[in-house]
């Protein structure tokens, strides 16, 4: 009978444990209310060396051992700032990371720092999730700091006179081409296509068939996930960017855009590009394996291609349309969130500031292939040596002159989704470019209407 008693006690204890597990967290949560953070702040001034740990959500949209690189970066920062530990939390793709950050914000438990697409500015602002960085900038760096970045990268970081994010892992789209394939097709390996006509012509020449099978395509332009980004390049080359700078209007159904989309579609109709949706992730593999002679892809892939391609390859500006060269910028910025402790925000800012130093930005760019965010980074010794040995790395930088902000609107998730859907519908042969763009414009107008007061 004693045994029975004992086990019932265990049993009850277990029940209590379960209940305790349910209630322990909210207490912690309320503890970090405003009064607490204020006292923390004053405490902070007394004891500067109090260790602070900040979490940073980060995505990976391009390949390579980025996890290691970013952890190394956090370590280096810790060595210089022993009281601050940055804990990078890998949170999936850009889209996944955005979802994570949003659920965390809605759950009143925002990350201290996050790297998210620069285009999420309006969405995050509408959610009242992020804080402007103006005060930090004023006290630490000023205009000089902001002006040190390429202006193309700052476009999506500012609105209504405030700066909300700082560029970090930025990219543009470039053309990768296989020089050996060019020679084989009788093309000059040092003269990649420079305009749409040449793009079509070269792609056709570069396509290789055996019987009814295509063994090598001329070009691949990925269309899974975020086709709007690649389309934006064509749109910029042929006319103007797709949205207004306040993120309340989009210009999708212009005549120029219809032409642009027609060109994209024609490449597949010519059989010099695979039909249907081309997977973003498989495209570089196809290029490396020689299954496509050219590809449109992010500069963030440069290091991967460099390390794995067994042939000589070139990197070039995207072929120009009616208006000239052009590409959207892309990639992620640092954001700071509302509702975190002041001390942690300070620490996070310190890390942002540290990461945008020319040497660090240069190292990050060399290790990953992302475009370094400031001209000064390209003047560092390390970068100069790198570009000299690997001139392809400079192409993305030079193309920045023709680069404009990535599509970014209010309700960005849904607006880009209706646009993506229509682009994919065209590429899979479900509809025509005119109809698709008209429909995308209508839907986007509907979605944006509530934001125009």
């Amino acid at each position, binding site marked *: 009978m004693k045994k029975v008693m004992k086990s019932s006690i265990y049993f009850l204890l277990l*029940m209590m444990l379960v209940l305790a597990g349910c209630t322990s967290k909210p207490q912690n949560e309320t503890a970090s209310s405003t009064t607490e953070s204020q006292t923390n702040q004053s405490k902070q001034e007394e004891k500067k060396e109090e260790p602070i740990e900040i979490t940073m959500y980060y995505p990976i949209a391009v390949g390579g051992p980025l996890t290691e690189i970013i952890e190394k970066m956090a370590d280096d920062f810790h060595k210089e700032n022993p009281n601050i530990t940055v804990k990078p939390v890998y949170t999936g793709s850009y889209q996944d990371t955005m979802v994570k950050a949003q659920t965390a914000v809605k759950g009143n438990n925002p990350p201290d720092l996050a790297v998210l697409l620069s285009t999420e500015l309006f969405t995050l602002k509408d959610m009242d999730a992020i804080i402007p960085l103006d005060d930090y900038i004023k006290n630490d760096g000023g205009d000089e700091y902001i002006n040190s970045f390429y202006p193309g990268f700052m476009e999506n970081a500012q609105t209504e006179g405030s700066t909300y994010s700082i560029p970090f892992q930025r990219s543009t789209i470039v053309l990768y081409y296989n020089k050996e394939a060019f020679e084989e097709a009788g093309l000059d390996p040092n003269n990649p296509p420079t305009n749409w006509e040449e793009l079509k012509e070269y792609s056709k020449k570069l396509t290789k068939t055996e019987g009814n099978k295509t063994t090598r395509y001329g070009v691949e332009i990925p269309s899974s996930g975020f086709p709007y980004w690649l389309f934006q390049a064509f749109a910029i080359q042929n006319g103007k960017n797709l949205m207004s700078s306040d993120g309340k209007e989009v210009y999708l159904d212009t005549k120029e855009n219809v032409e642009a989309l027609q060109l994209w579609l024609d490449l597949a109709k010519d059989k010099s590009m695979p039909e249907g949706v081309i997977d973003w992730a498989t495209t570089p593999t196809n290029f490396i394996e020689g299954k496509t002679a050219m590809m449109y892809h992010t500069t963030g892939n440069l290091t991967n291609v460099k390390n794995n391609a067994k042939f000589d390859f070139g990197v070039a500006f995207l072929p120009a349309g009616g208006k000239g060269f052009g590409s959207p910028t892309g990639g992620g910025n640092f954001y700071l969130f509302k509702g975190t402790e002041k001390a942690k925000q300070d620490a996070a800012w310190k890390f942002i500031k540290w990461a945008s130093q020319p040497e660090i930005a240069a190292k990050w760019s060399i290790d990953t292939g992302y475009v370094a965010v400031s001209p000064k980074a390209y003047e560092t010794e390390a970068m100069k040596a790198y570009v000299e040995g690997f001139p392809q790395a400079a192409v993305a930088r030079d193309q920045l002159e023709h680069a404009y902000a990535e599509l970014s609107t209010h309700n960005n998730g849904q607006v880009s989704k209706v646009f993506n859907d229509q682009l994919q519908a065209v590429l899979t042969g479900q509809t025509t470019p005119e109809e698709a763009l008209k429909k995308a414009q209508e839907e986007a107008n509907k979605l944006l209407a509530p934001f125009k007061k």
Partner: protein
Amino acid sequence: MEKKIALQQSVVHLGTKQETKTSKKMKTNVQAWLLFLPSLIFLLMFTFYPVLQTIYLSFFRADLAIPDPFFVGLENYQQLKEDAVFWKVMKNTFWFVFTTVPISMILALAMALFVNRAIRGTGWLKTAFFYPTVIPMIAVANIWLFIYTPGYGMMSQILDVFGFQDINWLGTANTVLPAMIIMAIWKEAGFFMVFYLAGLQSISKELYESASIDGASSWYTLRKITLPLLMPTTLFVSIIAVINTIKLVDHIAIMTKGGPDNASNLLLYYIYETAFNFWNEGMAATLTVVMLVILLIVAIIQIFFVDKKIHYS
């Protein structure tokens, strides 16, 4: 129930002996409810309350453009009616469920009939058919994503051997849903097989013996004895299969994110997108209500057609 209580109350006056009996009754009631309480709390909190809350929220406008939700009546439902993507998703869900379920059930029946005969040297088949059931859908998606990848996957290699042009399974509007249905059939058939096995084992052996004495062919026995007697199992499996398949969306997150142009998007994934990508909370609630209505219909079918055979008490 009410009658009983009335009776008890009238009995109370009869004397002390009855009084102790009632208090004992009272004690049992309290005890039973206390025993049930832990389950009840969680059931109310995570099944009933959310259902009511969802229905309530579905009458509100709550999205990124609106700081404070406000009542809009049936506007969300109206919007849904005009939302082409929603109808596409419903159509996909319908086809996904109503091709996956019958095909995998027919395969499951064939598997069960064969495995049940326990022929020497075929024991591994049961294992082979069932193992996909214990693999996470996410793992299944990873494996099949590679299988379907043009240029490298197994499908490409097979097509290549036979000299066909490669197919972009997941990147073409017409093939993406069938590709996913094939994968779902592979994942689920073995699970349904075990129910048929259980059903087969409950059929009396004597029926078969007398049939064979009468000289009935095996085809005849199958048609006249086995299949009719498996009817309750079939009805029951079809309900489980529908509920299971309607929830099967994990793979979309890995393989296509619903694309191209929503050709592989399913209702539960669309709810996920609407809630956590678009933060259109009113619409997410409305979509959840649609899902609940579908499940309600399934439940009604179950109560009227299936439950007569399988009773819970």
